[in-house]
């Protein structure tokens, strides 16, 4: 009987230390768990909870700001008010049609002033698209497809998966369990070092190595759902991938070194498209894209 109880209680230990402590207290009171067993289970639960604590939204926000600051130490911003207005209106339209319309610091869409063809999503909702990518897309719906893919990475917190588990465990164990306590100098120094390492983990994945294939395909799938919910023509996503494929034959690096084979993505995206498409885009969408796109060529 006792063994059965232990088997049934232990699976609940992870992330549930307080609950477990209550359960073991009841167990001791009723004589089904000894005090020694209670101590062992409680300690294991506390350790497991510490290591398992997820990254909170505020922490995601500060990590995202750090990654953005690092990207912006290498690129300038394209400060064209009409473009910023346009890209943010498209991005916000997509965000409210995504699974996660609100993040701690909200979504913000910025343009990097480079001819490279790329886009990055920092954890928490700062999304970058390059001027090179703006130059490549042929209409608002293709631009929306790029942003929808990046929003997919934000909603699924793909960037945070890059953080080394060992590093995160160290962060959590540095903090202790008390709810309100100021950091000691040593704790703060340690957290700053861990913060730096965390930003590096995410930066390397976003800019250098790329996400895993599964995350990219998931972001594509979510992008299609988001585009469809927003009223954009999902067939333009497929067109975007074809344009990217053509651009790839003329150059390398940027998005081509961090994303899976484009033909594989086209094949998967095709499967996800529900409608045949082909109906013309609304004139207003075509017109407003043309009005702003003429500024992008340098």
């Amino acid at each position, binding site marked *: 009987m006792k063994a059965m109880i232990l088997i049934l209680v232990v699976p609940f230990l992870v992330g549930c230390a307080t609950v477990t402590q209550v*359960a073991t207290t009841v167990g001791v009171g009723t004589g089904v768990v000894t005090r020694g067993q209670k101590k062992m289970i409680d300690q294991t639960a506390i350790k497991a909870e510490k290591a398992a604590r997820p990254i909170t939204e505020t922490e995601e926000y500060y990590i995202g700001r750090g990654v953005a600051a690092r990207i912006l130490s290498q690129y300038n911003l394209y400060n064209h008010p009409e473009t910023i207005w346009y890209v943010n209106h498209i991005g916000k339209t997509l965000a409210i049609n995504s699974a996660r319309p609100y993040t701690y610091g909200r979504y913000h869409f910025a343009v990097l002033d480079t001819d490279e063809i790329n886009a990055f999503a920092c954890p928490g909702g700062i999304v970058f698209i390059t001027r090179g990518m703006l130059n490549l897309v042929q209409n608002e719906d293709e631009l929306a497809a790029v942003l929808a893919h990046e929003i997919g990475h934000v909603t699924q917190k793909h960037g945070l998966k890059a953080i080394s588990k060992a590093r995160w465990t160290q962060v959590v164990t540095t903090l202790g369990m008390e*709810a309100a306590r100021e950091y000691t100098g040593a704790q703060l120094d340690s957290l700053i070092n861990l913060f730096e390492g965390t930003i590096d983990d995410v930066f390397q994945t976003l800019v250098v190595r790329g996400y895993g294939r599964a995350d990219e395909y998931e972001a594509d799938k979510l992008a299609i759902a988001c585009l469809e919910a927003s009223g954009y023509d999902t067939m333009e996503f497929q067109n975007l991938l074809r344009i990217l494929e053509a651009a790839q034959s003329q150059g390398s690096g940027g998005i081509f070194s961090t994303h899976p084979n484009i033909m594989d993505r086209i094949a998967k995206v095709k499967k996800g498209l529900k409608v045949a498409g082909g109906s013309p885009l609304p004139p207003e969408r075509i017109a407003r894209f043309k009005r702003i796109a003429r500024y992008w060529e340098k």
Partner: protein
Amino acid sequence: MRRFILIFILLSLPGMAQAGKMVKVKVQKSTIFQQPKFFSKVVTSVEYGDQLEILGDLKDWIHVKFREQKGWIHKSSLTSAKFNLRTIFVGTSSPSATHDEVALAGKGFTPEVEGGYKESHPEMNYALVDEIETYDVESDSLYDFIMRGGLRIPEAE
């Protein structure tokens, strides 16, 4: 054995939202709307840490009460409502009851940690990050953009 089955069932419940439970706002700013949809009339704004009482839910929207005002807020703005078993069994609230509360207490990667990092890495361009965070879209302007472009807003039903 029955007592144990009860514990087992209760342990499997955390995560369920329930009418009457309190939730907190986990984002800097959010909006309580009159209807469960974006662009419906704004009831009030809420900020990080504000406590709301759950009255019900409809898909991604939670019906809440905040300072005697009732309305709908998107679930992505809120911490998840969890049963606090310590309250049920012992009658007091645990100091580390949920992960969300730990976050609300300002632990982990905080402005203090970011400040220390900025100081030791002046090459990181936080000034531009702050500038990007000023990029905002007015609700009326977004609504107009969506409608003129033949786009859609999500419907709760």
